[in-house]
């Protein structure tokens, strides 16, 4: 994490990048979710003050189990609790559970099939009713209730025989060993049984408009199309809250979002953050702390590996060598994002920092293609076995930065005898069947590989996840490598963190070698907040900046 606040430092953009590259992501701050953050400067004794957080999308889904997008997470993380939470280092911490279940503490059986959760005994719902194991059972059963419009069901659909042992303990059986479920639980917020069990139709419950949780903030009101107001839950079982009021303000235009940050109308910019083109100016604003924070998604050229042009690994290596990433990052993306060699987010515990670095070298690219037998034809485009090295690249039309990057690539690819045509489509067409059913040649896309920050990437990289071949998942590049499949399968059955780490480090090595997609950069988000707002921690393992507002407070 590279923090740049004007009053403290005066780095250039390049310095910031260099620092980011050296320090990696975590390092600087030692967060402790339930204890006091290491840097907390005397939070007030009772909740005081108000923070207004700006969003470029309007939070509208307040039942955390229903289909929702990033911005809704901010409300869920503040009003509700899950059994566990993912901290900024990618490590699970207890939340409503007293401990993170593991094979070591007996929370998960050796075969991974029997889970036992022990709960805190001091938690109450916002209406005063005690929170018990019955609520957890109800929540997990509601998700798989066929009448309920649930969000994700992966993992939950494996849960069987939930038994409430005592108000603070429950067990269940898993249909098969599935280690990622632990991370999924960090995004599974608990809902109150005593309120929702009375509803005939949980999809239309009044609760969905005025949620009751166990979280640090209680629901106050929503002014549709404008803002949502939460108030401090003085009886919160965990740390905080220190703020009396928390407001999530909807500002639909990204430029206006930034303008209102400048004018001081909002105290913190959340999703979709400050745009890259405003980064330089923003970091010079007085009394504002602006920082670059790694995101979870990776921009890359996705190759459809079933197309004859891309079957030869030499082609993929040559194309990768013909990408001038440094120029693209500096000239087009304002130097905000960072190069990467893997799909794993750099803030993940499972990130592999030892992969070979890409090098822009047209001479080398030509040599690779020459050696592999791709010979330039009469028009200068290389050919082998009747396959012309020509393909189209597609992305959302109207995305100017991507369009510039495409033109840039088109030029350098042409220099090695490869023809890339640009064929962009409106978002709804691009990311519909064209993408999901692998109808593209190549795509320029920002992809998140992990679900709930768990390192398992089966959904994107496993042979069984190729929809175009009858599989289930999002392996739209149709990547298939038996060794990776076996490792991914092993990873989902392995619960020990170090063992899992070894597995995913290896997966990243193989994928770097196979190059099913050509990584361009790892996204960084520009976070901005007022200087006096303390206790703020960024967490790229959550989708919003407001993942832990309980710890925020104003400088006294």
């Amino acid at each position, binding site marked *: 994490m590279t923090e740049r606040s004007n009053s403290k430092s005066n780095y250039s953009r390049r310095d910031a990048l260099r620092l980011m590259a050296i320090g990696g992501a975590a390092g600087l701050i030692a967060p402790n979710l339930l204890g006091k953050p290491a840097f907390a400067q005397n939070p007030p004794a009772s909740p005081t003050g*108000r923070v*207004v957080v700006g969003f470029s999308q*309007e939070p*509208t*889904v*307040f039942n955390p189990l229903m*289909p929702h*997008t990033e911005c809704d997470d901010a409300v869920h993380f503040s009003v509700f609790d899950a059994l566990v939470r993912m901290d900024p280092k990618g490590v699970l911490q207890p939340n409503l559970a007293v401990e993170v279940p593991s094979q070591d503490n007996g929370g998960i059986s050796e075969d991974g099939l029997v889970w036992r959760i022990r709960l805190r005994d001091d938690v109450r719902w916002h209406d005063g009713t005690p929170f018990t194991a019955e609520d957890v059972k109800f929540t997990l059963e509601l998700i798989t209730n066929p009448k309920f*419009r*649930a*969000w*994700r*069901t*992966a993992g939950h659909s494996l849960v069987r025989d939930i038994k409430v042992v005592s108000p603070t303990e429950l067990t269940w059986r898993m249909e098969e060993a599935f280690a990622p479920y632990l991370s*999924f639980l960090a*995004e599974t917020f608990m809902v109150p049984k005593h309120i929702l069990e009375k509803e005939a139709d949980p*999809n*239309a419950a009044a609760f*969905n*408009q005025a949620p009751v949780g166990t979280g640090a903030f209680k629901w106050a009101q929503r*002014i*549709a*199309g*404008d*803002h949502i*107001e939460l108030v401090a839950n003085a009886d919160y079982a965990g740390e905080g809250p220190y703020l009396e*009021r928390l*407001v999530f*303000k*909807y*500002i*639909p*235009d990204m*430029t*206006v979002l930034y*303008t*209102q940050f*400048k*004018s001081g*109308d909002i105290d913190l910019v959340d999703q979709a953050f400050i745009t890259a083109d405003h980064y330089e100016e923003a970091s010079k604003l007085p009394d504002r702390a602006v920082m670059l924070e790694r995101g979870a998604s990776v921009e890359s050229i996705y190759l459809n590996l079933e197309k004859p042009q891309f079957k030869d690994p030499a082609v993929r290596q040559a194309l990768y060598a013909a990408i001038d990433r440094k120029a693209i990052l500096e000239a087009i993306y304002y130097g905000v994002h960072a190069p990467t060699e893997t799909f794993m987010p750099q803030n993940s515990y499972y990130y592999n920092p030892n992969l070979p670095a890409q090098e822009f070298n047209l001479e080398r690219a030509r040599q690779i293609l020459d050696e592999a037998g791709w010979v330039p034809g009469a028009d200068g485009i290389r050919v082998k076995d009747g396959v012309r090295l020509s393909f189209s690249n597609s992305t959302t039309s109207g995305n100017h930065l991507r369009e510039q990057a495409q033109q840039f690539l088109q030029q350098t690819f042409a220099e090695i005898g490869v023809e890339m045509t640009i064929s962009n489509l*409106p*978002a*709804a*067409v691009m*990311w*519909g069947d064209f*993408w*999901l059913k692998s109808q593209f040649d190549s795509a320029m896309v920002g*992809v*998140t*590989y*992990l*679900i*709930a920050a768990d390192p398992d990437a089966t*959904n*994107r990289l496993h042979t069984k996840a190729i*929809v175009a071949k009858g599989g*289930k*998942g*999002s392996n739209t590049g149709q990547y298939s490598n038996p060794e990776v499949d076996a490792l991914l399968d092993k990873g989902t059955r392995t619960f020990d963190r170090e063992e899992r780490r070894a597995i995913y480090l290896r997966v990243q090595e193989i994928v770097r070698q196979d190059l099913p997609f050509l990584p361009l950069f790892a996204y960084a988000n520009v976070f901005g907040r007022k200087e006096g707002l303390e206790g703020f921690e960024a967490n790229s393992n959550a989708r919003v900046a407001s993942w832990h507002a309980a710890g925020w407070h104003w400088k006294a």
Partner: protein
Amino acid sequence: MRGFLLNRLSQSLILLLIVSVIGFLVLNLLPGGPLAQFGLDPGMTQDDLDRLKEQLGLNRPLLMQYLDWAWRLLQGDWGHSFRDGAPVLAVIGRHVFATLLLMGTSTAIAIAIGTWIGIRGATHRYSMFDHVATVGAMVALSIPTFWFGLVGIYIFSLRLGWLPAGNMYTIGDGSVLNYLHHLILPSIVLSLVHVAIWSRYMRTATLDAISQDFVKTARAKGLSERRVIMKHVVGNALLPMITLAGVQLPSILTGALVTETVFTWPGMGRLFLDSLGYSDYPVVMGLLMFSAILVILGNLIADIAVAIVDPRIRLG
């Protein structure tokens, strides 16, 4: 009069039917749909998407979906929003006040100033004032509103700090003064275009009236120029304005798409854009029907008003 109203009513119902069919078709044939936003969500499997599609009833034939929607609408059930689950009429109700406030204010400003400029421009034709007004109207009409909005925010909010940079009110301060303070910039920006339109129409209408015989007669009677203009010219020139007002009436409730976005105004225009972005079919259809009804009403009111004011016109 009664025959006119019955006739109008039947025409309106046919019109609403056509609008709803076309709207429903276009909306559903657009690629994407309400589940497209989850297409890049790594945790949503195809099974999840298929299940949601069925639960929302989106896997049924389009005709079935339309008939179901139309039948419910006839019974007064406008459906529920896909986004927040609230009834469509409640969703509209939550946004209509903001729009009414903004559009009402700006329309009032536009009519007052536009009419005055139009009359003065016509009576002082080719004067300096008229030239400035003509060029000003062209500029106001040809420059997009969002540009005026952003420039206004830059000058009056960021540089001078006199006015707020958008929003309907300061969170935590619901006083009337606070609302008025926030209303100044967006309503002026929005009224710029409307002033231009109103002043052009008014100028033409006034010029038309001035060259009529009854004006010559009035002058020949020896009335003062002021009296001629106020009593004979303006009264007649305002007639076509009633029709224009009828056409503009719906926009007072349906809102301004761009201005509401630039000024973070939680009104109907932004509701429409957001609902379209999310493919929130029930709300988009609700808004479509709502504005279609308003257009019909606006025209009806204008026709009746013209008939009442102008004795030469008889409805029937």
